[in-house]
Structure formats: C-alpha cells, structure tokens
C-alpha cells in the first residue's frame, strides 16, 4: 500500500499531468512510477509547509527531467500550443472577474461574458508566434504558468478598435457572442412592443436582426467611426423597426407605436434577462454561456465538463442530462466508481442468479452501460448546442 507521501506526490504529478498533458506529450511514461521515485527522493523536510514542499519537489522534478529542453522541442507541437492557450484562459478568467467592465463588454458581450478578455484564436496565434518563437528557458511549469499570466496582463483587455476590426472582418468568435447578447434584447423588445414572447416566436426576429447587423458592419455601411455603442444602437434600431412592422400589419388603424414605453419592468428583466440555466449561482462555471468555460476545440475540456455535470447531482444541468436514465446511471456509477463487477451489480439489483442466466444478465448490464455512455454523451452534445 502506498505511503501518504507517495499519495501526495501522486496527486501533485497527476494534477501536473492533467494540466499540462505531460504523459501525452512524452515528458514521462508512467505517472505512478514517477510519483514513487519523487516521494523517495524528495520527502518533506521538518518544519516545511505543504506549499514549500510542493514547490521544492516539483522544481527538482522538472530540473532533473529537463523541462526547458522539452518545451523548446515542442514549440511547434499543436498540443503544446493548446496547453499555453488553456493556461492563458485561466488567467484571463481571473483578470476578467477582477476588472471593471469595459465599454465593449457593456454593449457587445452577453451577461457575465466578455469579448475584451477572450482569447480569440487569431489573437492567440499572434501572441504565441510573437512570444513563444524565442521561448525563454522555463525551469518548470510554475515559470511557464507565470509567463502565460504576464502575457495575459500585457495583452488584455483587447482594445475596442481591435474587436470592431475583428467584427468587420466577420470573425465568428466575436459575432457568436454578440448574437447571444441580442437574444434577451430581442425578447424584451418583442414583448414590450408586439406582445410576442417565447423562444420559438422570437427566433425569426432574432435571427433576422443578427443577419441585418452583421451585414451592416461587415459591409461597412455604418457611419465611421464605428464603435461598440454604434453597433448596439443600430441593432436596437433594427429591432424597433421589425416590431413596428409587426404592429402595423396587425392593426387596421396603426397605433401610435412611439408612445410605447421601452423601459423594462423588474419582472420582465427577471423573466427575459436572467436565464435560470446560466444564472451565476452554485457554480461560477455556470456564469455566462457554457462557451465561457468550455473550450470547444479541446476534447479534454468538453469531456471534463461532461463528467462534472454527470457526477455532481447538485449541478443545474445534471437532472436534464440524466432524465429517464437515473437507474442506469446509478448502475454505471457502481461499476466505474465503486468498482463493482457486472456479477456484483446483477446480484445487487436483480437477485442471485446462476449459470447461463447469470451470464446472460451480466451481458445485458454490460451492454446497458455501454449504450448509456453513448446516449448520455449524445444528449450532452445537444445540451451544449442549446446553452452555448
């Protein structure tokens, strides 16, 4: 049985491996072997605190393994680039949470989301090429992490003109976020002006507005200089016009539409602007759209979030994910988490069976778990589309 020190070094290296994908990049072969060796070489000294021991232990580990050379060799490796991007995203999130909201975000970003502190893929490539081509010699992951943090501090928030240029260049990354901003606005205007409500009813107006605004900006039809406020003003104008058209087509004698109050009541605000699913409670990782927290280009990130939703029964999306599969999920947990064999599960849930009967039942449970994985993941992907 592993000693407590071995368990601790195993946890340190497992986390380093999860964070920097060291095994996959070929930095080491087996995390357990490395952890045992590390525990023997660098046990905690007397009077040393846990953070002090952790820093010393990892520093020595990376020095002996030659982390600097490893980084230089992998500079062109897309996997390594992805690690740099994920580290920068962590620091961006922290910076976003502790900074004053920018004007760009106020007008263009959905609630609790950001454009100014987002890592647009083109922007990341620029930063990576400029700063990692002559990579400093990192002694360990802590130095690598600090370098990423400094890059974030010097390059963010992205200036408003750069984001507007990105939108003029039709960069989907910025537009997708802005379209999400327009959704509750559309709902509010439709409800106030035309008494239309409901996701399905406003969908056409919303998508038409998105297309109109996109064309106006991309084709540079808005009066220069275009800024975030100009884009949101134009969007509101489009929404008002669309609702006026609806109201005119309904009324025989057109009403004086301009007398309608556009100010939202507190009740409407709650109803249309605070989507319960994305409300920032219980989970900060629920604040804003899921796109804020899941890197959709990274399979590990998408899969990790799936596990979190599936495992945590208190998660706001858990019930939706497992609906109708509750019993099967329970059996899957028993197999994967508690380590029960198929025979144990059969005995526990379907009573003691013997011979062919037992073999048949075990095969059925095995198939059930296999199919359940597929069904749950398919449902999860649909949910990602829905809440993205």
């Amino acid at each position, binding site marked *: 049985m592993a000693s407590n020190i071995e368990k*601790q070094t195993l946890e340190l290296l497992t986390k380093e491996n999860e964070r920097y994908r060291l095994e996959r990049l070929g930095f080491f072969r087996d995390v357990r072997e490395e952890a045992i060796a590390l525990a023997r070489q660098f046990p905690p000294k007397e009077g040393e605190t846990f953070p002090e021991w952790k820093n010393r232990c990892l520093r020595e580990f990376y020095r002996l393994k030659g982390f600097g050379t490893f980084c230089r060799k992998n500079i062109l490796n897309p996997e390594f680039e992805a690690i740099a991007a994920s580290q920068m995203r962590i620091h961006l999130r922290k910076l976003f949470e502790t900074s004053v909201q920018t004007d760009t975000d106020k007008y263009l970003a959905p609630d609790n989301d950001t454009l100014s502190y987002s890592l647009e893929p083109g922007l990341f490539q620029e930063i990576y090429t400029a700063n990692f081509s002559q990579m400093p010699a990192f002694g360990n992951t802590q130095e690598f992490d600090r370098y990423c943090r400094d890059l974030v501090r010097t390059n963010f928030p992205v200036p408003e003109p750069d984001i507007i240029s990105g939108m003029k260049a039709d960069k989907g990354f910025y537009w997708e976020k802005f379209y999400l901003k327009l959704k509750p606005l559309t709902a509010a205007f439709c409800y106030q002006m035309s008494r239309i409500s409901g996701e399905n009813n406003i969908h056409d107006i919303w998508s038409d507005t998105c297309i109109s605004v996109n064309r106006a900006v991309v084709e540079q039809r808005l009066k220069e200089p275009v800024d975030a406020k100009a884009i949101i003003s134009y969007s509101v104008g489009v929404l008002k016009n669309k609702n006026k058209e609806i109201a005119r087509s309904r009324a025989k004698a057109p009403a004086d539409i301009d007398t309608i109050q556009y100010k939202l009541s507190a009740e409407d605000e709650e109803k249309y602007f605070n989507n319960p699913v994305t409300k920032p409670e*219980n989970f*900060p990782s629920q604040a804003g759209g899921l796109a804020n927290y899941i890197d959709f280009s990274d399979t590990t990130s998408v899969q990790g*979030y799936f596990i979190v939703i599936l495992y*945590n029964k208190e998660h706001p999306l858990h019930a939706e994910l497992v609906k109708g599969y509750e019993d099967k999920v329970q059996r899957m947990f028993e197999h*994967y988490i508690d380590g029960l064999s198929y025979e144990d599960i059969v005995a526990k849930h379907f009573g003691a069976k013997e011979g062919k009967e037992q073999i048949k039942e075990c095969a059925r449970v095995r198939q059930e778990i296999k199919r359940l*994985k597929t069904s749950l993941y398919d449902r999860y992907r649909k949910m990602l589309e829905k809440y993205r």
Partner: protein
Amino acid sequence: MNGHIDIKTLSEYFLNKLTRDEETLVQEHISSCPECRKRLEAMRRLSQGIFGEDTGAADIRPVFTRIIRSAWTKAAAALIIVTGIGYFTYETVSNRNNIVEQTRIQNSRDIENEVFAIDTFDAEDSLYYQEKYGDDFLNSDSL
C-alpha cells in the same frame, strides 16, 4: 481550509480551472481528507471509465461511421472489388472472342460482295457500256 471542499471548487480543480495557489490549497486539504480525496477520485474514475480507453471515443462515434469503419465492411468491400475485377476480366476476354468472330464474318461477307459485284458487272452491265461507248468499248475490250 475547514470542513470539506465544496463541490464547485472540487469540480474546478478537476477541470484545471483553478490558479496555482488555489490548486495548492486543494492539494493540501485532500492530502489529509479521505472524504474529499474520494470524491475527486470518483470523478477521475468515472472519466477513466467513460473516456479512458481511447475506444471510448469510438463508442461515441455515429452509428454510420462505426459501420463504415468496421472490419466486416472492409471485408465486404474487398470481396466486391475482387468479384468486380473477375467479372470485368471474364467479360473482356469473352467480348474479345466475339469481336474476332464478328470481324471474321464481316470479312467473309465483304469478299462475297466483291465476288458478286464482279460477276454481275460482267453479266448485266456489258450491254449498257456497249450502248454508251459504242463498238469502241468492244474494240478496246477486244484489244
């Protein structure tokens, strides 16, 4: 850190969303808290069970892709190709024999026509040429 780590922080630790300092705090806690370590291990085991073997990714591929990539599909495709090549070869060889045979028949017909044309010229058209060219035709012929 008093008590246990809340599930939100533990989830963020699992997802690598914490900063290095926050991460160290969690690690320090779980080094002495079997309950929190157990919950973290549960998430890791679940992840390993579902996505662990890379075949996990294969499991979540669409049915159509799985059919396309299965060994049976490949074997069936190979069989179809081999059968196709065999049939094509057979057809080509037998067609070639037919063409040779047809050419032979065509040639013999042409010869027959030629012979027929010579025969009929002598028999039927000599008078026409005699009328048209007079006796010179006969004379030249006699010459």
